[in-house]
């Protein structure tokens, strides 16, 4: 190209080095330019939020798998009663990934594709609340809840006065075990630390769940626990792990190994065990240990960017009609937030015949679906963690489960 031997200027062409330099510059300016926004939305008063909103005859409901019968009976009843159609989507697999999916959209003020969603009273719930991503509820529109909702849900520590949420179902985290394989009665969380069961114990991987077990075992009430208690709890869990007692940390998949006998005993959720015994004919026993157990609540909330909030709150309220609540409880087999539903289930049992009667009776009498006040007294919420200060807590327990 360069025939003359002398260096000739080539003004129009950029060398590869120039290109790198430019792209480096561009990259550096992009790097410096951005940030991830946090709390941006000013808290909205219910009056301001609900002013001028009306029914659209339609709503989108994001829920967890196996949280409503496949025929969606409650939703059919709802449509017959109100004319509102529901787009039901079993799209929530766990709180963390659901939060991860919707947070960026909510921060942008964009519709998340749901007007009503169900989320557990844990870290993600607190974060959504703190970020101002939940619509404040108008209790004028929740008269059925006021009448039939259990009182205990009206003064919870995570959402006092139901400002943003009403319960969908609650569950108890206790111990489930194989009576034959374990060969004795399980009564205490200490049993999860017993070397006799080495390699046969299942634990849940969620920091809040596993923390409560260790705290209760150490004799500490989760509600009053201090960071020192957390560290002691983490130490106890580390010992349990390093002695080879824990087989693995599970998300929701502990129930299969437990049924097949690979696990002899495991931390477990009440409804799973109830369902597994009823549907699969398993012979698992569920206990609330003498130290107590954890109760968590899955709550219905309306994302602040919902397009059909009035329809959503109408459905929220409708689900507290005792007949509908009974319908839900019968399928879900977790704790029903409507005490009156027990009466409905009993009535249905009397009207039913043979096998169905027995299963309905078992449901109506189960302390895992309709706990008594004495049962409730043994149950603890998760450790209350302010949304901004949960990092230390979660890191401590993730270090146990993700070694």
């Amino acid at each position, binding site marked *: 190209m360069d025939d003359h031997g002398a260096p000739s200027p080539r003004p129009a062409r950029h060398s590869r080095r120039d290109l790198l330099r430019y792209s480096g510059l561009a990259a550096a300016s992009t790097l410096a330019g*951005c940030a991830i926004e946090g709390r941006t939305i000013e808290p909205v008063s219910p009056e301001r939020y609900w002013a001028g909103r009306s029914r659209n005859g339609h709503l989108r409901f994001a829920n967890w798998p196996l949280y409503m019968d496949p025929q969606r009976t409650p939703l059919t009843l709802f449509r017959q009663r109100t004319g509102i159609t529901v787009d039901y989507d079993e799209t929530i697999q766990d709180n963390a990934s659901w939060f991860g999916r919707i947070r960026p959209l909510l921060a942008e003020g964009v519709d998340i594709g749901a007007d009503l969603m169900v989320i557990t009273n844990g870290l993600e719930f607190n974060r959504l609340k703190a970020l101002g991503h939940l619509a404040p509820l108008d209790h004028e529109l929740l008269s059925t809840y006021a009448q039939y909702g259990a009182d205990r849900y009206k003064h919870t520590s995570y959402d006092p006065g139901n400002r943003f949420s009403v319960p969908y179902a609650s569950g108890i985290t206790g111990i489930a075990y194989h009576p034959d394989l374990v060969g004795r009665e399980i009564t205490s969380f200490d049993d999860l630390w017993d070397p006799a069961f080495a390699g046969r114990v299942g634990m849940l991987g969620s920091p809040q769940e596993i923390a409560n077990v260790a705290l209760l075992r150490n004799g500490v009430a989760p509600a009053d626990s201090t960071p020192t208690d957390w560290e002691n709890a983490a130490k106890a869990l580390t010992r349990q792990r390093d002695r080879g007692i824990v087989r693995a940390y599970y998300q929701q998949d502990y129930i*299969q190994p437990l049924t097949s006998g690979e696990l002899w005993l495991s931390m477990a959720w009440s409804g799973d065990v109830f369902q597994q015994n009823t549907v699969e004919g398993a012979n698992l026993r569920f206990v609330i240990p003498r130290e107590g157990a954890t109760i968590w609540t899955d709550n219905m909330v309306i994302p602040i960017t919902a397009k059909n909030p009035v329809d959503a709150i109408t459905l929220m309220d409708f689900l507290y009609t005792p007949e509908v609540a009974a319908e839900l409880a019968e399928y879900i087999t977790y704790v029903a937030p409507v005490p009156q539903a027990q009466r409905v289930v009993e009535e249905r049992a009397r009207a039913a015949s043979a096998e169905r009667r027995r299963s309905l009776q078992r449901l109506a009498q189960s302390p895992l679906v309709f706990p008594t006040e004495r049962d409730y007294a043994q149950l603890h919420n998760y450790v209350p963690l302010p949304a901004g200060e949960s990092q230390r807590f979660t890191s401590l327990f993730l270090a146990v489960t993700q070694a």
Partner: protein
Amino acid sequence: MRTARATPYLLVLPAWIWLAILFVMPLCGMLSVSLMTGNVIDGFTQTWHVATYADALARYWPQLLRSLGYGLCATVLCLVIGYPVAYWIAFRAGRHTSTYLLLLLLPFFVAQILRTISWRFVLGDNGVVLAPLKHIGLLPESAHILSTATAVIFGLAYTFLPFMVLPIYAVLRRIDHRVVEAARDLYAGRWATFGRVVVPMSLPGVFAGVLMVFVPTSADYVNAAVLGGTHTTMIGTIIHAQYLVTNTYPMAAALTFALLAALLLAIFGYARALGTERVMAVAAGRTP
């Protein structure tokens, strides 16, 4: 004349745009996030906080090393299992070649998570593998594979096996059979022909296969989560949890870059050891 010279550039333009939008931009974004500080409630701001990287390595080096180790084991396993398979399909399958290739790819029609979960049944304590061995007394009743590193490595090797077989197959297929015949004519035995003629010519495929298996296995998080137990956490699971559970985005981003750097270093070392020029020379059909 000018248009003619610009044509190739215009033709690759869509690819460049694609790469810029889906690779360069996210990568820059991630680099930026890794240098931020803050929390999810108050937001994250750019503070050029390089210390996150030191913190990431100090806290998670065991999981990072373990991931590379598992990736290496799975890659070796894939090579040992995959090379004969590729060889057989290329030279012995005859008119059934496409059937075997289809069979090889058939598992991809099922979601990865389901395939991984089905290993739980295969490797289960009383599953098809362990039950007979326990029955004849070769293994004690308490023996298990599930929830151990072995299960994770087997799962990884299973998931990515086709990525090893296909590139090796593609290269073996192109080998001129007359070269093999010539080797035999020159009194090379079966093994000598294989070792001194076929293997060197298949090196580009092996090189590609190793890369295509080592990189995704090291970064995988599904197998460890489904088949692993305690002390089998891989770096992918940590990144997942940092992003979704603790919402510490900078740490998640820093770990991602640490993994990227570790993989690049490993690949670079591997390319140097094997000699990329040699591989490329074979690929180009020249004598190494």
